[in-house]
Each structure stands twice: as structure tokens, then as C-alpha cells.
């Protein structure tokens, strides 16, 4: 049996290509449409916005790789179908240059992604030395307690529970230090609009800074499953101008203890 030249001559190739390309283009369009219409929150805090920017970068890289690899897969499906019972493809076992290439290129991509991640996570987790405002958030089954350390040394608190979803306020463009603790099981502080979550666990005090950059009222939830009424651990956070915040916080009830 003689070895024949590549059977799928130029003509066959072209017909495959003419079918494949519109399909691939459509796929790419759909995928990109999906992402850029996800309307994810852009981050209403300085930290959250950094996360959002990183997310965009990752999203584009992931989609680019995805479209590339999907295109390769669909190309194989379309172009390399078996043509005949006696169609015997070359029995290639390996090809070292290609194998080296598809090992090293992902390593480089991962390296770059890790670099950006490292920079972003350090900025997000950075706590300033002198926050404008300090508060403690205590999660419990199934609600939240927001305590403010007032400048005069006193304390003020807001409680949110399933009977009444409470609202706590934050000053716009000021750094608020949050100490997050729990009274019982593991909870997770989650304000989707801030693009930010953090666990509240017993034995651990989680400290982070929030610097809101957008005024408005945003919903917050518990993201970590914490028992029967996990879905009712809702609260609201209202970002207001600093002056307005000071008036609001001064009129809050002060716990007697």
C-alpha cells in the first residue's frame, strides 16, 4: 500500500474552513458578549475597585485562552474527521519542541497572572496606620452587630437581625477600619457592591480597611452557610458624606454596658 499525499486537498480544506470560520466567529462573539454583559460590580470601595480591575484582566486572559483552545478543539472536530475506512493517520507519538512550547508558555502566563495577583492582594489587604474611623462587626446566628468606636471614647451600635434588617453607615472617601468577629459559628461578611468578603470566625479577629468611593445604600449578606436562617442574615450599608456620617453616628443608641 503506497503512502498517498494529504487527501484533503486545497478544495476540501477550503470548504471545511468556510464552514468553521463563521462558527468560530459566532462562538467568540457569544462568549465575549457573555462576559462584557455580566455587569459585575465595579467595586464601590478603593479596595473593591482594585479587585474589579484585576477581575477584568483575568477575565480577558481566561477568555482569550478559552477561545483559542476551543477553536483548536473545534478545528480538530471539523477538519480531521475520518474520511474512509482505510484512512490511517500518521502515528506520531510525540514532538518535543511542541511539548516544550505548551509547557513553558502556560508557565509564563501563570507567572504574569501571579505577579498581578500578588500586587493586588497586598493593596487590598493593606491596613493603614491611622484609620479615620474604627468599628467592630460581630456576626451571630442570624444577624449582625455593628459597633463604632467613637472619638470621645464611647461606643455606638446598630443591630441587624431577621426581624429588622439594620443599616450601618460608612463615611465616603474615609478609611474605616473593620474588626470582624463572630459570636458563634463561622459567618462571612459579604457586600457584593464592595466586591469583598471576609470570614468571621471564633478565635480569629479579621482586620481590614474599607474606603468607600461611591455614596448610596448597598445590600450585604452572610455568604458562609451558618445554619437554619443563613439566608436572612441581610444588612444594609449606607455610604454618606463624612459630615452626615458624624451626625448619624452621634445620635445612635449607646449600649449601657
Amino acid at each position, binding site marked *: 500500500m503506497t503512502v498517498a499525499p494529504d487527501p484533503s486537498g486545497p478544495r476540501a480544506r477550503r470548504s471545511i474552513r468556510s464552514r468553521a470560520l463563521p462558527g468560530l466567529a459566532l462562538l467568540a462573539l457569544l462568549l465575549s458578549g457573555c462576559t462584557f454583559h455580566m455587569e459585575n460590580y465595579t467595586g464601590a470601595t478603593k479596595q473593591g475597585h*482594585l479587585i474589579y480591575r484585576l477581575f477584568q484582566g483575568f477575565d480577558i486572559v481566561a477568555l482569550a485562552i478559552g477561545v483559542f483552545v476551543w477553536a483548536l478543539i473545534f478545528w480538530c472536530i471539523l477538519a480531521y474527521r475520518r474520511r474512509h475506512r482505510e484512512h490511517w493517520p500518521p502515528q506520531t507519538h510525540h514532538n518535543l519542541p511542541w511539548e516544550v512550547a505548551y509547557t513553558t508558555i502556560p508557565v509564563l502566563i501563570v507567572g504574569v497572572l501571579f505577579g498581578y495577583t500578588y500586587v493586588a492582594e497586598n493593596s487590598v489587604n493593606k491596613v493603614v496606620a491611622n484609620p479615620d474611623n474604627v468599628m467592630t462587626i460581630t456576626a451571630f446566628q442570624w444577624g449582625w452587630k455593628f459597633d463604632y468606636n467613637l472619638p470621645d471614647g464611647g461606643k455606638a451600635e446598630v443591630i441587624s437581625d431577621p426581624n429588622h434588617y439594620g443599616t450601618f453607615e460608612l463615611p465616603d472617601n474615609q478609611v474605616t477600619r473593620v474588626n470582624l468577629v463572630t459570636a458563634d459559628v463561622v459567618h462571612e461578611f459579604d457586600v457584593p457592591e464592595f466586591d469583598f468578603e471576609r470570614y468571621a470566625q471564633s478565635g480569629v479577629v479579621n482586620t481590614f480597611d474599607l474606603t468607600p468611593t461611591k455614596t448610596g445604600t448597598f445590600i450585604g449578606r452572610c455568604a458562609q452557610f451558618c445554619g437554619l436562617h443563613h439566608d436572612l442574615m441581610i444588612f444594609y450599608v449606607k455610604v454618606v458624606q463624612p459630615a452626615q456620617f458624624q451626625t448619624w453616628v452621634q445620635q445612635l443608641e449607646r449600649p449601657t454596658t
Partner: protein
Amino acid sequence: MTLLAERRPAAPHEEPHEEHRRGLLYWLTSTDHKVIGKNYLVTTTIFLLCGGLMAMFIRVQLFWPNSHFTTQETFNQLFTMHGTVMLLLFAGPFAFAGFANYIVPLQVGAPDMAFPRLNALSYWLFLSGGIIMLSSFLVAGGAASFGWTAYAPLSDSLNSPGAGADLWVVSLFLTGFSAIFSGINLVATTFALRAPGMTMFRLPIFTWNMLVTAILILIAFPVLTSALVMLYFDRHFHTHIFEVAGGGAPILWQHLFWFFGHPEVYILALPYFGIVSDIIPVFSRRPLFGYRGMVFATLTIAGLSTGVWAHHMFTTGVVLLPFFSAMTMLIAVPTGIKFFSWIGTMWRGAIQFKSPMVWAVGFLVVFLAGGLSGVILASPPLDFYTNNTYFIVAHFHEVLIGTTIFGGFAGLYFWYPKMTGRMHREWLANAHFGLAFIGFWLQTTPQYVAGLHGMPRRIAIYQPSDGWTSLNRLSSIGAWCIGASFLFFLWNMWISWRKPVPAGSNPWDAGSLEWATSSPPPHHNFHSIPPIRSERPVWDANHPDLAELEEPRIPAEVGSGPSGNGHGS
């Protein structure tokens, strides 16, 4: 432990002839790896249907905002059991006990698993564990309702009293031991029972992956089992291992659980990578591209997967972020190697879309999406955004459905003729694929969006004002499509049972050793074995003239045809 005993010569008892070995006693006493493998496959498929049914109920509840289809407590039990049943009673054992038991001894040319009675014990422990798990719905207070991750202190006796939670613990204890025994058996079989000439670097990739999976089981499951013992002690003997009040640390549970939990994810994934690595070369008529790279990638994935447990704990604030995010991102590299090996195998191949290949290519398409969102989640700041939202839910359902359903059913349709001697119906297998594939995208894509819109996981009730209604509806419809697609599967099994079509020993013109014996294989597997000179001994024997083929070979008249899409048989 049975070694010394089994080295004695067998007693002169007459072994009953195979045809007469039927019925309950045969089922209860058989130590044949093929019988045990089939038992596992049937049992895990039933667990899949149970877990799937729970998912259907969950999706009914979430179809309407403010829905009261189930109570909150029932909902919590449902998703807890859905997770546990799917991950620990279906996805893992389906492959590392079901397929591995049946296929690995055949692929290495062994008459049985190394320790047949340990193998049987492993199945009975698994079955009893599974029955205990499912029956926990019947006890007072219902089943466990703390999520499959059972985070302390939610899982302690104060927050989760009742027999359901205890049954969850002891059931996982039993299935954990079952998995460890399966792992030991697999390692011993691969190491000590290979046929002459079957060197380690001629093992089919499926067997390699099962070997690596078995080692991962040996690393991960003892940690889970000991964590469960600690949890039981905390619940009943007033120790305070996971309790701050008594000097313990709840975070320790998370460390222990995820030190098991993340390798577990790869215990679930690697076998299905192996299945796909076996299927794609067969239906492309080519050897696997980059065999050694594939072995290396498998080992690397396994190693890295054990060093990344705390990426489930990024938002705890008490783990080292750069270490875990770097290790996690690195997993993308060997996974990429695997992808390019699969694509390289198909490249310039002669691809024939029989049902196993359709499912395997479906796996590639689907798993890629899950893998890429995995890279996003490997970045701690992005995890701060998406942790415990539906973004995560979408990610791991893509990964897990991608591997266990698409990879798993690729394997099932691939080896079904070998296991039963009968062909399934191709059109039903393809219909099963089509509906599952559509349902899959319909289910997961809206979940990504819902997650980015802030929908947390494990909530029973949401409000219309949250804006998640249409996303959840799409997702529910998708999930029901996946559920409905299994009717095609059951129908397929029914037809092939009632109207058998003989399969022959090698219906797919495959290359590894299991296709050298009859379908189903005889007792102790082989009457003869072809010479083993590569990882495709049967292919070598069937196509001796193709070994050195460097250029494609096609009869000339086909090449001159207009579009050249002759499908052959």
C-alpha cells in the same frame, strides 16, 4: 494482609462453573474484580440518580423567588446530602472503585486485583456507608444539614444535634475506609501484577491515572477519617478540638477538611482525565500524543493538588495567600499539558464520532470552561469577590459535571460493550449527550452571572428585588435538562438488556489490553495475551504495518472527492 494466605495453593475444591454462578449468594460472595467493579458502577449510578433527584428538588425551590416548595430545614438537608452523595458516594467511587476495579486488572494483564477479598470488603463497606448516608433522612430531625464541608463549630453537638449528623460522620467513616482499601488494592495491582513486557511506561494512561489517584487517596482519606473521629469526639466525648472555648481551634477543621478536600477534587478528576486519554486516541486512530508528558502532568497535578488546600480558605484571613495562590495557579500548567496532548492526539487524526468520542470531546469543551474559571478563583483578591457565591457553585459544577458526567459517561459508553458483551444504542447515547450538554450550559452560565451579582450559595429563599429570578429559572431549566437526559441513559440500558446486540471483543478497534479478551472477559480474564511492545499491544497486533506510519494513508479516490467526509461504518 491476605498475602500470605493467598500464596498457599488453592484447595482442591471444585470451583463451580461460571455459568452456574448466579443469584444472591454469588453476588454476596464474589471476589471477582469484574463483579465488584460492576457492583460499584451500578451502586454509584443509583447514588448519582439519588443525588440528582435532590438537585432537581433544590432547583424547584430556587425556581421562584420567595418560594416555599420545601422548608428551609429540608433545603439545608437537601444540599448537604446532594453534595455528600455526589462527591463521596458517586463521583469518586464511580471511577476509582467502579471503572478502576473493572478495567485496571484487564489493562495490566492481571487475572484479578491483588487482594480480591479486601476488594470485596471495600465494596461492602461502601454500600453500607451509602445506605446509612441515605437512610439518615429517615431519623428524627432528618439528615445532616451543615453543608458537605461540615465547618466546625456548625457541625458540633450544640449547633447540629441529632442522629442525622452522627450518621453522616459514621457513614463517611465507612466509605473513607472503603476508599483507602480500594487505593491499596489499586497500587498493589499496578505494581505487582503486570503482564510480562508491560513496563510502567507502557501502562495505558487510564491505569497511570488510577495509580496516581490511588496514591492521592492514600494521602487524603486518612486525614478525613481522622478529622471525622475528632469531630465525633467533639460531639460526644466533650473534647474541644474544634472549640475555642476549650482551647481548640475551629480553623483546624478547615485545614484538615481541605487537606482532604482538595486532593479529593483531583481524586474525582484524574480518573476521568485517564478515561478521556484512553478514548481520544482510539477514535482518532492515533497513539496518545506526548505519553510521557501526560504521565508527568498527572504526577504534577497530584503533587500540587496536595499543596493547595488553603485556597478554599483565602477569605479566612489566616492563611498565607501567595503560597497557595501560586501553587494553585501552577496546576493550570500540567492541566494545560493534558489539554494540548488531547488536542495533539486529535490533530491530523482520523476522528470518528462514536458515542464515547462525542462524550469525550464534550468533556474537553466543558472542562475547559471550569478550568479557566478555576484560574480566576486561584487569585485571592478575586476569591474575596466571589467566594461562597454562585460563581463558585458554577465553577465547581462545571469542573465536576465536566469530569464525572461527561468524562464518566464517555467511559461508560466506551467500556459498556466490554463489560456486558452488548452494544448500547448509539443514537440514545448521543441524545443523552445532546440534552446533557445543552442543559449543562443553561445551568452553569447563569450561575456565574448570579454569583457576580452577589447571590450567595446555600440559600433557600431570595427576593424578587434581588434580581436573580430569571437567572435562577434558566439554571433550573438547565438542571432539569441534565436530569431528563438520564432517561435516555436508562432507556438505553433497558433496550440493550432486552434486545442484545453482540459487541465482539473489540468493537472500537482499540489498542489496550482489555480489548484482547472476550466481552465480557472470562473468569480470570485472559486466555491469551498479545505480545506487549507498546502501550497499545492490541493495536500493534491488529495493525502491524502501521507502527512506523509517518504520513496519513488514505486510498486515493477518497482524497479526490469533493468534501471527503465519508464516515465509514
